[in-house]
């Protein structure tokens, strides 16, 4: 009898301790130390309201993140593979089968997918299913340094600006000394953001970003857009791509006053505010007859298909992507334009801080955002990293003209597509 009691107590205490035991959800993302601090605050808020789930952060700088996480999957070990991961673009990873299809969870819990910006959720989809929720919409606006504009006597940019206005302003903002050494460039913009100009000019990179059959970079729309960007650099208006990277990136040169404008997403706001900069934002100038073409893309939170506790991961994921949960915390940290329109139009975004005052620029770009900056097929990384970017770099460095380089580039792209069996 005593023995039975003993066993019963043991079983009971075992079950009891199980019910109290915490599940740990490993949460992976990239970011600067400041950004990681925000993520930690989000994790803390979640754990405060969900004592049964413990969130553990795994972070890497952006430059290493994707390589590192890929090798983690390769290990196949569910104890080291993060449960909820920040990824971009989702399609590459969904195709490899390492991500969980979220459709059943969305249906079961009536998760409001209509609240996302138009087109944005497509970025988290593969083969018609949702595999990830974009956290934010990484669209760019034009940041400008008011002090430099005042000093050069240039009016602040507004939504009426066209490419010609931008060029005219750039001419005045650029400061070249007699030797040809540039003291200040008008614009700092990463070469890799060239698709913005192409989209504004109604062009594209490939005829179909999911199942491409040919390269369209040599078509007039794309050609003119690339010419516009190349001319900005050739005239010393924009810092050349390699120089920008070498000087420390656009945020560094904007802060140190080496450039008057940058084209960047909302992630820089808190750093610029902390540095006490006198700046504001505006919508990005578009060509005559062009369209706004901010990128409807954003890194997305995804769930690992290896996860040991998918229910807990979903609980966390859906909380993260709600106006009452993670979205509001991220938004008021001032670093993102949230993926949910309701969050963006709330005070959490519009009234987050005094600077930049023209926050409507983000909303305007958001309502006109377009999909299609990156390819939605697995070989895109190789195509872009090994063929497209190097050829464009030759243009950005002023060593090749778009007229010469783009037709040749398109030939190699078409050859690559054929070699890899596209269109499928």
């Amino acid at each position: 009898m005593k023995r039975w009691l003993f066993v019963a107590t043991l079983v009971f205490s075992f079950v009891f301790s199980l019910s109290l035991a915490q599940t740990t959800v490993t949460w992976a993302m990239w970011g600067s130390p400041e950004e990681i601090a925000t993520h930690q605050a989000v994790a803390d808020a979640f754990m405060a309201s969900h004592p049964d789930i413990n969130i553990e952060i795994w972070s890497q700088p952006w430059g290493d993140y994707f390589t590192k996480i890929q090798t983690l999957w390769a290990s196949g070990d569910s104890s080291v593979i993060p449960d909820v991961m920040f990824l971009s673009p989702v399609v590459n990873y969904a195709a490899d089968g390492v991500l969980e299809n979220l459709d059943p969870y969305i249906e079961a819990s009536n998760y409001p997918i209509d609240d996302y910006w138009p087109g944005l959720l497509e970025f988290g989809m593969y083969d018609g299913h949702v595999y990830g929720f974009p956290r934010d919409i990484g669209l760019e606006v034009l940041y400008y340094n008011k002090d430099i504009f005042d000093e050069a006597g240039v009016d602040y940019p507004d939504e009426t600006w066209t490419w010609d206005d931008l060029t005219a302003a750039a001419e005045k903002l650029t400061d070249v000394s007699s030797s040809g050494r540039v003291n200040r460039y008008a614009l700092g913009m990463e070469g890799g953001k060239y698709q913005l100009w192409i989209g504004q000019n109604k062009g594209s990179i490939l005829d179909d970003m999911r199942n491409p059959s040919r390269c369209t970079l040599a078509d007039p729309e794309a050609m003119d857009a690339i010419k516009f960007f190349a001319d900005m650099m050739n005239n010393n208006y924009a810092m050349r791509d390699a120089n920008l990277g070498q000087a420390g990136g656009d945020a560094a040169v904007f802060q140190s006053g080496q450039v008057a404008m940058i084209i960047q997403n909302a992630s820089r706001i808190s750093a610029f505010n902390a540095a006490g900069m006198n700046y504001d934002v505006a919508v990005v100038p578009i060509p005559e007859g062009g369209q706004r073409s901010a990128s409807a893309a954003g890194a997305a939170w995804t769930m690992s298909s290896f996860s040991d506790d998918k229910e807990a991961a979903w609980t966390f994921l859906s909380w993260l992507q709600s106006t009452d949960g993670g979205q509001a915390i991220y938004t008021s940290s001032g670093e993102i334009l949230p993926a949910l329109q309701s969050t963006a139009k709330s005070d959490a975004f519009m009234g987050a801080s005094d600077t930049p005052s023209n926050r409507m620029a983000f909303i305007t770009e958001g309502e006109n955002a377009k999909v299609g900056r990156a390819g939605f097929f697995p070989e895109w990384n190789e195509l872009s990293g090994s063929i497209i970017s190097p050829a464009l770099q030759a243009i950005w460095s002023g060593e090749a003209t778009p007229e010469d380089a783009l037709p040749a580039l398109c030939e190699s792209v078409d050859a690559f597509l054929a070699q890899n069996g596209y269109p499928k």
Partner: protein
Amino acid sequence: MSLPSQTSSRKRSSGWRPSQQNEAYLFLLPSLIGFALFVLVPIVGAFVLSFFKWNLISPAQFIGLDNYQQLLFQDAVFRKVLANTFVYAVSIVPLQLISGLIMAVALNQGIRGLELYRLIYFMPVITNIVAVAIVFQWLLNRDFGVANAWVWQLAEATGWPIAPPDWLNSSFWAKPAVIILTLWKNIGFTMVIYLAALQGVPESLYDASKVDGASGLQRFRFVTIPMVSATTFFLVVIQMIGAFQLFAEPFVMTRGGPAQASLTIVMYIYQNAFEFGRMGKATALAWILFAIIFVFTLIQTRLQRRWVHYETGD
């Protein structure tokens, strides 16, 4: 300094017993296990892998010689990295040898402060390549770097239309930038090895040539160069092997850019394996690199008979 010396032909131990057999294997065991696991098996593995298409995640797919065939006959980037790597090798090796030898000869004149000079010249050899490459990236910045500053200042002062190189943004200058970094980093190594070789040259040879009325330059040409030729041969071989495998310098300083102008074979291997998920292609590429190094070393070994002077009666 010691070139692998001729194995001494001392008489064998007389105390040999059969039980040594098992003992010997015991001594070898730790080394053999590691050797098998991290050298032999990987060599075989690399060979097999080069016939597959594999991204580590989805199942590997046998594709025969496709990786090799694609690289050799279709891949334009491969041709580019091959050309880049050759440019590095044929410029780094001679420059390294010439500057190292000049420095060594200068230091070998019995001047004061030899130790201090050697300390300074050798310092970059022991420093970390990543840290150094970052510093050079900063030195070579077009508008704000120190390397260009005096040219800009001269241009501003005189009004001459001269512009310094746009080092890391120019597909022409990116390679010299990497070469300068490599030279700066390794010149001390070549110098110290030559210095040791020079100190082994008997003074009597120089004295004899002086008696014959040879000038300093002639002595350099007809005494010094032949006397250090064995060292030169050795340096050519190892520097070439090193130059063919250049990775960290361009990886950190230029990321292979602009437009792949400074991309090397090893960087391309890294990209294929760890960025594009092409494990098989990357291994095939590594074997091609091995073949190139092997052939070049073979050629060097053949050629050395014509110009390397070995002391006789040693």
